């Protein structure tokens, strides 16, 4: 029990010593501390040790953490900070050049592609007139559908029916061409379709002949 009391007393004294060193002690506490120090030689030793620790620690930290003075100069810190900050921002600017270059390259590629598509459309306009199969509405360039249409036609017995072809103008293209002499020459191109349809007149003729 006396040991416990002694430990508690030592601990309280230790706190009081530290508070005194840190300038946080009240006048009553200081009185109690002084009484304790007079009574207890171990407490005096502790107070001496802590005082030394504080003095050495302050000196050691001043030297170790604040350095010899050069790094503590605000102006030199500012110089370095501003220089590094500027270098970083210049680096970040140059870093942005890469995506910009990629974007430019992509833009160029897209423009080139559009020009080539434009050429294709001109070539398409110059294609020969398309033939439209009467039995289907699918695109005439689709081979697969065309075969399907043929098979349907064969299955329904329409193959035997005589067909006739009609050429019809469906559209007219007007093309402007810049000549070597600087004049613009206008070309008119008729777009036609050849339509195949059952030749009813011959069928009628054949029917009447059969009769």
């Amino acid at each position, binding site marked *: 029990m006396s040991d416990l009391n002694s430990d508690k007393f030592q601990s309280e004294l*230790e706190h009081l010593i530290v508070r005194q060193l840190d300038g946080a002690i009240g006048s009553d506490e200081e009185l109690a501390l002084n009484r304790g120090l007079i009574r207890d030689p171990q407490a005096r030793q502790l107070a001496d040790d*802590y005082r030394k620790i504080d003095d050495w*620690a302050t000196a050691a*930290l001043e030297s*170790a953490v604040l350095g010899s003075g050069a790094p503590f100069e605000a102006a030199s*810190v500012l110089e370095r900070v501003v220089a590094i900050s500027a270098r970083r921002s210049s680096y970040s600017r140059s870093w942005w050049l890469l995506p910009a270059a990629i974007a430019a390259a992509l833009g160029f590629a897209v423009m080139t592609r559009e020009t080539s598509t434009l050429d294709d459309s001109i070539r398409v306009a110059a294609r020969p007139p398309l033939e439209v199969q009467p039995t289907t509405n699918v695109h005439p360039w689709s081979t697969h559908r065309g075969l399907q249409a043929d098979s349907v036609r064969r299955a329904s017995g329409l193959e035997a029916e005589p067909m006739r072809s009609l050429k019809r103008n469906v559209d007219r293209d007007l093309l402007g061409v810049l000549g070597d002499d600087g004049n613009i020459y206008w070309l008119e191109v008729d777009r036609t379709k050849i339509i195949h349809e059952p030749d009813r007149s011959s069928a009628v003729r054949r029917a009447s002949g059969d009769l």
Partner: protein
Amino acid sequence: MGTMPRLDQLDAEDAIIEAIRLKDRYAFEEFVRRHQRWVRGVIFGVLGDRDAVDDVGQQVWIAVWERAGELRDVSRWRPWVYRLARNAALDAGRSTTRKRKQSRAIRQEMAKSDRGETPEAEVIGGEREQAMVAAIQALPALYREPFVLRHLTGWNYQQIAELLEMPTDSVETRLVRARRFLRELLKDKL
């Protein structure tokens, strides 16, 4: 230590922060001059590595210069700077490289050779200082941080508690335990 601003004087710092937000170099210089001590203390307190204090401190000031505009409440500049310093120190602690260890070893060797030419009193003082720094570095970060702030800045318990966002009693307890640790570590030198 007497030049350190007290917490009740901090309102005056708001204007400096506002000026830094506008990239005023003089304001920044003044700010660094006023607060470098405790910022370096925080870095050393967290990291326990004096060789890293310059580099990490520089990172903190770069962050203050570049990111002052992001600070929403100017009156909360101190916790903001504290967090910048603490996070930078923690990051540096994680990425301590072999290179740094090597350079530290070289510097220690150079210090030893320099010591050979100094007078005896300085040798003793230097050794004691080295031992003290080593002992502080060996402290748990929990105790080191308030101890370093107390000894570098001279702040009272309340000021340290505000910065570290902990009760004043905890600061006192940690300061008692830090001294107890140091006494044990330095018992041969005392």
